[in-house]
Each structure stands twice: as C-alpha cells, then as structure tokens.
C-alpha cells in the first residue's frame, strides 16, 4: 500500500485518537453495556488500520515491530488465564469472581433494579475485559499489519 494524500492523512490524524478512545471506552465498560474486550479491541485495531491505510504499511512497519505485538498478545492471554487461576486461589473455583462484593477494586455490589450504571462493579469481569482487549488489539493489528505489508512487498517472506 502506498501513502495517501495529505487530506487523508490529516483526517486520519484527527480521527485516530477518537477511535482509540472510543475503543478503550467500550473495553472499560464491557461489564455494563454491550461490548467488551473483543468489540473494543476490534475498534482500536480498526483505528490502527486507519493509520495503515493513510500512511503506508511500510511506514507503520518501521515503527511498530511485529514481535512486540506478538508479545503483547501473549501478555493479554496470560493475563486472562492468570485472573481465572487467581479465582481458583482466592475463591476455590476456576474463573471464580473473587473481587465481587469485596469493596476492593471493581468490588462494590450494584444496586438492584433500573439504576444508573456504577463503573466500580463487576469484580474480575473488567480485568478480564482488559486482558482480552490487549490481546485483541495486538492480535487484530498484527494480522492487518502483516497482511498489508506482505501484499505490498513483491518477494515477501524471503
């Protein structure tokens, strides 16, 4: 993919932070509203794909290493399983929600009925959403990046 015009680049520069912010919002509110790690991660990754389209894939490839993204992906997956294993340690059941009702981080009990959403609820669910979000951002971005880069290079992989 070649670089696009200045107009596209400028618009991409303006839109990129908002897309990322919106994606992070969806990830963070996964336990309250529709969405969560995967959906938010997909939004952030599409923001990154916007950069790929506007600037060339080579430009992005020079700045972000594929290896680093792969490491982030592993960290996301490890975080997810670690939270699940912590449930085993603290509440004696795998995937146990040990933070719910503990008044610690994300630990308050939500009021029943139709109330305003309280962000500080959900126990381990937000943590898992963050882990999945990291994994999906890294994973989808690395897929798009490598595919775009590979199709722009004539003799790739050599």
């Amino acid at each position, binding site marked *: 993919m070649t670089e696009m015009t200045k107009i596209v680049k400028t618009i991409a520069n303006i839109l990129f932070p908002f897309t990322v912010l919106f994606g992070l919002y969806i990830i963070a509110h996964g336990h309250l509203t529709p969405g969560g790690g995967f959906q938010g991660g997909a939004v952030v990754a599409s923001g990154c794909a916007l950069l790929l389209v506007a600037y060339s894939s080579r430009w992005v490839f020079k700045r972000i290493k594929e290896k680093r993204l792969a*490491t982030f992906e592993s960290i996301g*997956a*490890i975080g997810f399983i670690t939270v699940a294993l912590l*449930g085993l340690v603290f509440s004696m059941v795998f*995937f146990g929600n040990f933070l719910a009702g503990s008044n610690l981080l994300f630990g308050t009990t939500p009021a029943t009925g139709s109330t305003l959403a309280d962000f500080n609820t959900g126990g381990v669910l937000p943590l898992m959403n963050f882990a999945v979000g990291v994994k999906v951002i890294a994973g989808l971005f690395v897929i798009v990046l490598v595919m775009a880069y590979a199709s722009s290079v004539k003799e790739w992989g050599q």
Partner: protein
Amino acid sequence: MTLEETLLQHSPALIIAIPLLSAFLMPLVSRIHAKLRNVFALVMLGLTGCFIWLLATDVLASGPRVYIFGAKNLTLPLVRILFEVDSIGIFMAIITIMLAIIAVIYSWSFMNEQDGLDKYYTLLLLVVTSALGMEFTGDIFNFFVFLEISCIASCALIAFWVEEGEALEAAFKYIVVSAIGALFVLFAIGLLYAQYDALNIATLAQALQYTFLDKIVLILLLVVLGMKAGLAPMHMWLPDAYGRAPPSVTLIIISATLASFYGVLRVIFTLYGNVLTTSMRFDFPLHVIIGWVLIVLAIVSILIGVIMALIQSDLMRLIGYTAVAEVGYMFLAIGTTVAALGAPYATVALQGGILHLLNDAIDIGLLFLVAGAIYYVTKKRSLDDISGLARTMKYTTVFFIVALLAVAGMPPLNGFTSKFLIYESVYQLNPILSIVAILCSILMLAIFIKVLYAAFLGPELPALKDVKEAPKSMLLAMGLLASLAILIGLFPNLFIDTLVKPAADALLNHAQYITMVIGGV
C-alpha cells in the same frame, strides 16, 4: 480438606488451564533460551499428565466428576459452563496426553533445524488443550468452541512447512472443510437451544423428544463429526493433511481427530441415549437405522482407505489412507454396537471399538513417526526414491516391523486384540461384514509389506550411502510407542479391565451421566 483432595477437585479445570497458560507463556519462555522451550513444553505436558493420572484414578474408582466454572454450586437454570469427566472422557484424555508427550519428545530433534518454533509449540499446546476440552466438556456449545480451536490451531500446524506449496494446499482444504462443518455444528446447537432452552449435554439428553428438528440435529452432528473423524466419502482432507503436516504434528492431529470420534460417541450414546429405542416407520427402532448407516459408511471407509493406500507412492500419504481404513474399523464397531443395542455382543463390539481407538493412535502414530524418521534422514517423500534403509537404520526398521504387524492386526501385537473383538462381534451381526473387514486387514498387511520391501529391503542406492540412524529423541519416541504396542498385545486384559470396560459402561449407562448433573442441582 487435604491438598490432594483440593487438587483432585480442581484437576478438570487445571488440565485445561495448564496447557493453555503454557501455550501463551511459550513465546516469552523461548526468548530466554531455545532449549528451555522444549523442556518447558515437556514439563508442562508432564504436569498435565500427572493431573490426568490423578483424575483417572478417582474417576475409575468412584464414578463421574462434575466441575462447575465460576461458581461453587449448580443453580437452575443451567447456564453455567461445566465439565463432566467420566470414564470414556478420561480414556480419551490419556490417549491425547500420551500422543502429545511423545510428539514433543519427537520434535526435540525432528524440528530443531526449523525456525518459528515458539509458534509451533504454542499451536501444539493449543491443539492439546482443545482436544482435552472436547473430551471433558459437559456443555455442547463449549464443545463447539473447542472444536473450532482445534481446527484453527491444527490448520496452522499443517501449514507449518510453509515453503512447500502442498502443505498450504492441504491446510486450505482442511480449513474449508472443517470451517463449514463447524458452522453446521453451530446450526445444530442453535436448533437444540431453540427447542429445549439448554446447552448442557445432560439437560438436553434428559429433555430430548426426537422431534423433526432433533432428526436434523442428529444428522448434522453425525455427518460433521464423522467428517472430522475421517469417515468416507468425506475423508479426502485426511490423507492430504496427514501426508503434508510434519509427522510430529500429525500425531497431535490424530488426537484431535479421535476427539471428534469421541464426539460421535457422545452424541449417539449420551445425547440421543434416551431416544435410541424410539420406533420409526416400519417398526424399525432408531438405533438400527443409525447403526446400519454407520456400518455402511464404515465399510466404505475401510474399502476406500485400503484400496487407495495400495497405489500410493508417497509414504506419508499412504499411511494417511490406512488411517482412513482404521477409522472405518472403529466406526464398524460402533455401528455394530448401536445396531444390535442390548445384545451381549454389542458390548463386546463397543469394547473392541474403544480399544481400537487406543490401538489406532499407537499404530498410526508409530507409522508416522517412522515415516518422519525416513524423511528426516533422506529428505525424500516418495517410496520410489528410497531403498535398502535397513542396512543403516536398524532400530527404525525394527520399529517399523512392529508397527506393520500391529496395524495389520497380526498377533500378538495390539492391533490384533481389538480387531479380534471387532471381528467376533461383527460376525454375529452379519458374517459378510466381518469377512470384508478381515480381507481388508490382509490387504493392509500387503500394503505395508510393500513399504517394508521398498524402503528397508532391496539394494542400497548410492544416493543414500551416507544416511545415518535417526537421532536419539526420535528413537526414544518411536520406542515408547512400539513398547506400548507390544505391551497391549501381550497383556490386553490389563488395559481392557482397567480402562476399556469402564469406558464402555460409561457410554452405555447414560442415565448416570445425566443424573450427575440433574441430580446435583
């Protein structure tokens, strides 16, 4: 509660969690040191094996075990994901972990010249996780998720030798076929959920009425899982995939294939266990129809597998076709059991089929390891280009002869014991089927005698003058499988009494599986 009890209670979750965690730790571990990666994979699989051992001793002694994710107790409605481990599940898990450990030992030398090995081990551990998950899960949607994980991860592994066009082709065919199959499984799950508002296998089995939609579900599940297990005439992906994947990967894919076969068993015996005796038109009970459909497809698999294997010149592809025939033997046994449900020989057929699962994994796995050793030292795939290898590869030749006799069902090796049970019981259903099965077994012997002659006997070609024996880790992996083949052949009762009979009983006694969950509420 002692430590052992606690570990035992959580072992179903840990058996999934340990390989999964180590799969994602693998890229980080391999950054530290390359050799540490192999050790890490081996240690983690060994740890999983220990937990499986712990769980197996308990399940075989005191019946199925239920593990609920995310909660201590079951509450209605059953929306919790739960694992239910019974004797057949643990039997499959033992096969899976055995193949996985042997594959990792084998890859120590076999793959050490390749790069991208961190991804290789990650995917390998993911396939192991998914196969174990399919075998333990008590939730049909969860089964679908693990099925998809196994198909994605094994597809990526089949294409591991990415510089060969054929490997990519095989992987593409595999992913097309299994993606469509898995989507139909999801469709079937949707139909079940629409009718019974449940995804739990035990709850579904309890509520199943055999309506028109259930008929569709049954056919979809049988055909898709049969295809994933390699049943003819939907077997074509299997020789492609088995023949082009690295042999250590093939060993893992065999375990994924067997997990699909386990899915067939679970669908017929547990999910549809209550309605098997429903009378259909012309007073045929349902189980007779299912049984004969399976028997016909099984005979077709055996014939096609054996006849096509005879004309192959690519060694790994030849073994792939024999694997189709072996799958046919398993389906023949299961078909006989279902068709003759209630007869005394039905239980014998089921035991034969389940023992053949283990024997198929050992024999076909050993053959692939031998083929891999030949490929490793000669870099040649075609049988036309190799000859006289017995002069330089003595141990490999011995292991190949063991595998040859075992897979052809010659006494006293393991293939004979299970085929003996299958022949004896199928003969009582219909003698012709048994005769066809025996004749195909003889043809299989002829096929492997050809391989023995072409690869190991014959004149020593100058191009192969300086081949050496395979490295030690590969010999160790082959030796482990070969000694298992001999052990099962000499002491079949040891395995049948401790593992196979409880597994067959668990399948036939589906009421116990259902009450473990329904009664636990």
